[in-house]
């Protein structure tokens, strides 16, 4: 953890969360005075941990660490969006609300992904783990009806540039940060530590 403090671990057992360890760290507040020594307020420091369920999206986040991108498709024959492939993954079809079919689009991503638009920013919010400047790319795939937001780990983004996915397979975080993008043709040696093409 960035603050160097021990944070608790969570598992589920029989459908319940089991928490083990320390989940928050208390720090005393401090007063805020103005230049004349008059009390204006107090600080309220806080450090806490959320416990969050991925539910039906767990398959997507689990697959990234195995070098796979799982998308979803509506297979309801009566749906006006039948056959639509969604990336970001949607647990249910947004039109008919039937459970989507999980499908592996890793190969499609490797062969057809390109940059729809992008942006580069040197300013980030607190808790940002990505090296700056952050290069966002919005990636489109053939046959997919939506456009995925991602992070370009190598090189400079350009619209319509072909990119390929790389995966944090060595020590997955099980977050969207396990999936980065690099320009097609990037040598393996240039990838960030822990990331691989497969």
């Amino acid at each position: 953890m960035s603050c160097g403090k021990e944070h608790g671990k969570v598992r589920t057992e029989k459908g319940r969360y089991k928490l083990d360890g320390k989940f928050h760290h208390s720090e005393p507040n401090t007063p805020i005075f103005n230049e004349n020594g008059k009390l204006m307020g107090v600080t309220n420091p806080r450090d806490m941990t959320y416990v969050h369920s991925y539910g039906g999206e767990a398959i997507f986040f689990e697959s990234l660490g195995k070098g796979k991108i799982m998308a979803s498709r509506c297979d309801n024959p009566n749906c006006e969006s039948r056959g639509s492939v969604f990336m970001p993954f949607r647990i249910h079809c947004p039109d008919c609300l039937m459970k989507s079919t999980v499908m592996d689009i890793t190969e499609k991503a490797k062969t057809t992904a390109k940059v729809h638009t992008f942006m580069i920013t040197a300013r980030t919010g607190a808790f940002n783990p990505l090296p700056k400047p952050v290069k966002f790319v919005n990636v489109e795939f053939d046959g997919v009806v939506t456009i995925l937001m991602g992070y370009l780990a190598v090189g400079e983004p350009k619209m319509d540039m072909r990119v390929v996915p790389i995966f944090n397979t060595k020590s997955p975080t099980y977050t969207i940060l396990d999936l980065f993008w690099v320009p097609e043709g990037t040598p393996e040696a240039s990838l960030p530590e822990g990331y691989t093409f497969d």
Partner: protein
Amino acid sequence: MITFSEKQLKIPKMTRPVYLVTGGMSKFGRAIPEKRTEELCIDALTEAAELIDHTPAQLKKYIHTCYYGHFADHFGDQLLGEAVIHDRLGLDPLGNIGIKTGGATGGSTLWEAYKTVASGYSDCTLAMGWERMDEVPTDEGNHLISCAADKDWETPLGHMYTGYYAVMAQKYWKVFGKEEASFRKAMAEIAVKNRGYGRMNPHAHGGKKITVEDVLNSPTVAHPLRALDCCLMSVGAACGILADEKTAYEMTDNPLKIDIGAGSHTLRVADRRKMEIPLLPNETKEQYADLGDRFPGGDRYPGFTGFLAARMASYYAYNMTGIHDPTEDLDLVELHDAFTISDIQTYEDIGIRPYGEGRTYVESGDCFRTNPHTGEPGKLPANLSGGLIGNMHAVGATGIMQVVEVAHHLWNRWGEMHGNEEKWKRFGRERPADWKDLQVKGAKRGLAISHAGVGSHVTCTILQHPDHILERRD
């Protein structure tokens, strides 16, 4: 949803007309350490009461239900902050509810208050909005704002909302702006205009005399956006009082008819699917047949270049009120200028200009109070309050501030509400020596757009002077 049923496109028909009776605002600032949020809300309500020669206690006697908008509980570290404000305003035990729709929170708060009067549940409602963005360090504030994006798919990427937004700016810049220096200049002119108008507003904390060159030389935030292209982060409160016709005329001689439409679109831009352009009353399908030829890439609608929510909100609002062409039928607008480029995008979404031609609203001089090319009044002045760039963006208050600002023009009281020397002093600000009354002469109708983030929620509020009400379209 990429197709609409007839039922979904129904033009809202309210059971009875609704009027804006009065409104008020606090001082806005980047930080206001000397006041608690409730003090700012009391300032806003007091101003609203005084505007119609009531005491706050007299005004409160009319209020039946209360709507409170503030975007982020996290910023104030107070869940159910609405209940705190409601108590401090002394409005218990009346019914109240909190409204949250990100950047559109102010507009949505009015939308709810409006429907409550229209339905007959209440004869008079309070819509109060505020934001407290000075109680966390700026980078933590940016993190909190980024939590309004998808927390699994977007927030981990930089914890910076601008990043999720600027990809659209980038696409618009490429497709419709064609990366032209002249387009970049049109963006800069908006920043100059709105900061300039902000100088005339005692409530505002973003007023500044700057030039196009200043904008073009300010630090890059996310190409093509520079620091001076971006809106403020603010603290403050604003309120509006809505009533049915009978009650409104009991309270004041000058209520304004108010109507509000709302739309939405995916929280993640990533989830947008291609669809046909829903048309506004002043558009035809044919005019967009060659959009992709004129602007390669522009035929993927709404793609990353349009705000479908703004289009839908104005579709409902224009048809409810009979607006055919906003430039002809309205006298001024307050738009959600979070960034100069999103301001231009919105001109198209709400039909001030067709898709692809938003820049001409600036280039023609129509959006200025005084057209810089002709010296004549601009056709449809925009953001005379200073907007989010030159006045404030205290999120929950913003959409209400815009409506109050438009109303001041329709009441012909803009000069009085912004020129008052005593008010400038009370806010600890100095009225500029070249202060100018920005009152739009003879203003009869105006519009305000309240907009959330990447376009997840948008409301379109239309104010009309009761002597100049258009006929609704059916």
